[in-house]
């Protein structure tokens, strides 16, 4: 039987690990899906809050991959696929080891980089996306800001720089009361 002992996950990322060569960019496979923290936060309705950004705007990575990139927990990384690019937090995966794969829980952040291709069978390809990960200095956006920056429904589409400079929409609903 394929019994697998509990894999040993190194608690601390050792940047000076002899086998881990520091590099700027990593080719990985991206999986998305539900995760209990993301699910609980989403369905409670707290999607505007920082909490949602922490549980859904995060790439769970193998500690070895993190060492190769030279990032530690809550450092920001940019994930780039054929469909887009998004900045998320990096965090140790509790399911490691899975070198070469990263996991972003489903949500607005993951959506930017997953494939809408259904191959004529209704379901987009949310898993097994080839992408690259690199360290980033940009901020991970709050949900409302991310939706505005990516889909630009109610802002001037051509003014990329202007959108970046707009004030944040914050963590509470914004609407005009009667």
């Amino acid at each position, binding site marked *: *039987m*394929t*019994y*697998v002992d*509990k*894999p040993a996950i190194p608690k601390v990322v050792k940047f000076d690990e002899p086998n881990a060569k520091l590099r700027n960019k990593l080719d990985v*496979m991206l*999986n*998305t*899906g*539900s*995760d*209990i923290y993301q*699910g*609980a936060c*989403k*369905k*409670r*309705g*707290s*999607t*505007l*809050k920082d909490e949602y950004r922490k549980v859904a705007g995060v790439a769970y990575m193998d500690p070895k991959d993190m060492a190769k990139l030279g990032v530690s927990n809550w450092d920001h990384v940019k994930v780039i696929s054929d*469909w887009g690019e998004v900045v998320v937090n990096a965090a140790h995966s*509790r*399911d490691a*080891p*899975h070198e070469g*794969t990263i996991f972003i829980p*489903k*949500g*607005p952040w993951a*959506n930017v980089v*997953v494939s*809408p291709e*259904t191959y*004529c*069978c*209704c*379901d*987009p*390809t*949310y*898993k*097994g996306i080839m992408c690259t990960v690199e360290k980033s200095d940009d901020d991970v956006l709050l*949900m*409302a800001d991310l*939706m*505005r920056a*990516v*889909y630009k*429904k*109610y*802002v001037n589409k051509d003014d990329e720089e202007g959108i970046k400079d707009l004030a944040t929409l914050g963590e*509470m*609903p914004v*609407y*005009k*009361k*009667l």
Partner: protein
Amino acid sequence: MANYEPPVTDYESIVENCTCAFCGCNCDDLDYLIKDGHVVGVRHACRLGASKIMEDMDQRLLVPMIRGEDGELAETDWDSALDKAAELIAGAVRPIFYGWSETSIETMHHGLELGELVGAVLDNQATICHGPSLQAVQNAGYPISTLGEVKNRADMCLYTGSNAMNSHPRHMARYSTFPRGYFRPRGRFDRTVVTLDPKYSDTAKMSDIWVGFEQNGDYEFYNAIRAVLKGKKLQKEFISGIPKEDVEELAEAMKNVQFGALFFGLGLTHTLSKQRNIDIAIQMVADLNSYTKWILMPMRGHFNVNGFNIFMAFETGFPYGVDFARGYQRYMNGETNTIDLLTRKECDVFMVIAADPGAHYPGGAVKHLAEIPVIQVDIHWGPSTEIADVVLPGSFVGVEVGGTSYRMDGVPIWMKKAIDKPETCRDDEWIIKEILERVKKIKAEQGALASK
């Protein structure tokens, strides 16, 4: 201990035997602790269920809103909001009504009538989760049983492509693995739990056997098991990264149980082979049935996602992605499904009821939603509200309003009302009925004009 939360003792009354409105397990044994007309505590629910029921009131949608010229949502009265929604729908050429999985069957009735009237596409979350499973069921059959049977009989539970501990946390506790059943008096000790998943998931951590085959290795792996079941010798040393001896051993173990239950999740439907993965899994179950009893069940996500599929199949003959554009129902995978319609930019008005495309559609599809009017009927301010033009606040099925839902095994469950809804909100059923009435009126006026 830092993580210890004392039990809630400050409450006025208890409402017993409520049904959880989160996942397809539809746990119907919850007790709500009520104070000042709010649920302040939930007993028996898992983390997911409890967090949804004790919602975040900060983000509760309380008033109808319409987005103004300046791109900001502004509060309005119910009449104006409903009129605006009806006007958009009546004027649409290719409307999609998407969602329905977190509302009651009663609401769907009115939605279907509205869809038929205006020639809309009716679709639900199955289109982005278990749609391929439904196609496979149409291809290869549906060897299902109820969860009660699993609880009383199963001595092997196999989870494949599903992380039940994260997405259906009480599934193992209530139905499959841990409960003591009539023929399984010792509960967990009388059952073997197997997880097939490339990831060492939380479910895999609790299993007796974890088979961590390669990503996208599902199709090959099930076929190898089928080959072994048919008495063939495997030619390759490794199947999807698993040594062939292990595959043979697993096949042997699966053959020698008294009652096996295979639960599959989105790991199968979201990878490249999509519905073909499930075709083969169903055929594997069929093969196993030459030796012993095996059943298979999709792990449905929302509490009523199965309900919409059953309701639509009953009413129209097709489970989801039903297109009324020609005046009668059509269903064509890859053509009449929401994601395809959006990526092809066909849709011109989008109504979302109790769902969150902003949070769950691939960006490529949301991009089109940013170009067309979106009507949202929901209870919380979410990513979809950020791209919605008309917002209609509904009420919470199973907490603030009663309704029928279908569990993942197809058992209908009545979800009762426990507390009153916020005064300014309306029931989903009422909202859809009102829109229907108003669209009928507009159509009648247009008809009268045309005949003059």
